[in-house]
């Protein structure tokens, strides 16, 4: 849904039009839910934050000024709400051993990449994504799920573009090494004789 359509719906929402709200909700709910779930890793909490985020739109529809894609703006609201959930959690609860993965010398030869690409599975990626820090996980999600540009990711993460590049670089290294280790344990890692 483009910003023109979104603006028309928001104008109707400002007049308390519930049908317009429902249309907007259905158009963006999956995106917001996917983002929040990636951050909080709890479906019930993710749904709660989604509802909260959309309710914010209902209450303040004129706040969106069309300076970014609506989904980017919406994810910015959801991010603030998700951060409140993070504050109630132990800082390194989920990614206690991921830094170890970054120290492993990656097999970055063409064959290594190709075989890793062939063998990596959804479960493996999910597991390794879950081991990343929140910032790295968020960065990968915004780039590869939301398809956001460098500038958009920087705006969402409220950091310079160079920081996004660095985060992306480290996230790539860590997830690749994590996947390689996972495959090694299964006895089929690239470069490992099975």
């Amino acid at each position, binding site marked *: 849904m483009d910003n023109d359509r979104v603006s028309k719906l928001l104008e109707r929402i400002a007049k308390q039009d*519930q049908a317009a*709200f*429902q249309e907007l*909700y*259905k*158009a963006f*709910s*999956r995106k917001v*839910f*996917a983002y929040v*779930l*990636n951050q909080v890793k709890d*479906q019930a909490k993710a*749904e*709660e934050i*989604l*509802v909260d985020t*959309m*309710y914010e739109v*209902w*209450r303040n529809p004129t706040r969106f000024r069309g300076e970014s894609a609506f989904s980017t703006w919406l994810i910015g609201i959801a991010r603030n709400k998700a951060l409140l959930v993070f504050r109630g959690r132990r800082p390194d609860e989920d990614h206690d051993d991921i830094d170890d993965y970054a120290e492993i010398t990656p097999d*970055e030869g*063409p*064959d*290594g*990449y*190709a075989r*890793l*690409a*062939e063998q*990596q*599975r*959804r479960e*493996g*990626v*999910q597991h390794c*994504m879950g081991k990343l820090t929140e910032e790295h996980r968020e960065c*990968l*999600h915004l*780039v*590869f*799920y939301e*398809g*956001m*540009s*460098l500038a*958009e990711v920087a705006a969402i993460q409220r950091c310079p573009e160079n920081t996004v*590049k660095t985060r*992306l*670089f480290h996230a*790539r290294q860590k*997830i*690749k090494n994590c996947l390689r280790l996972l495959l090694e344990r299964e006895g089929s890692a690239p470069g490992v004789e099975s």
Partner: protein
Amino acid sequence: MSNERFAELLPWYVNGSLDAADRAWVDSYLAEHPEARSELAWYESLQTRIHETVPAVPASIGLARAMNLIRGDRPTLSEVISGFFGRFTMRPAMALGLLGVIVLQGAVIVNMMGQVKDDETEMRALRAKDVAEGPLVKVNFAPDARESDIRLLLVSVQGTLTGGPGQLGDYYVRVPAGKEAQAAAKLKDKTIVQAVELAAGIPPRD
């Protein structure tokens, strides 16, 4: 250097957010370096897997809860007020009308205040009644004596407060004739009473 640039641009090439010039640069790099295609394949695979990790949920997820919130939603008082006055900034004629209403209401209120002037008498202290018959007893109460205890005590001696308190805290109580000594003795016994004596009459006001 070109390898670094390739590594930097590749994620954005894969997610489709790269501008045309950078996209063309990556395309030419890939044509010149076929071995780099494996890294492209890895990113593409990662992107596919990340999409797969997100559970398929209906677009209406949480919608019923959101609608419940909305239907129960009522603007706060401050929102109502700011919304109300916000309109006047756009419509001067309405603001002028509102000013007129305020002035009119003010005039009505002032007029009503004038009408209730006589009721002020209700706020005045009641004038003490003179009790014509009976002897007087002058009583001094303790500073911490409670008004309710004083009243009870006066009832117990059939006394009526006739004057006081004076500057020295003297109260004049008229008691039934022939019972003044008995009343004085009873009053003396009470801890809230500091002094009691028979009085010839109420002293004139200063």
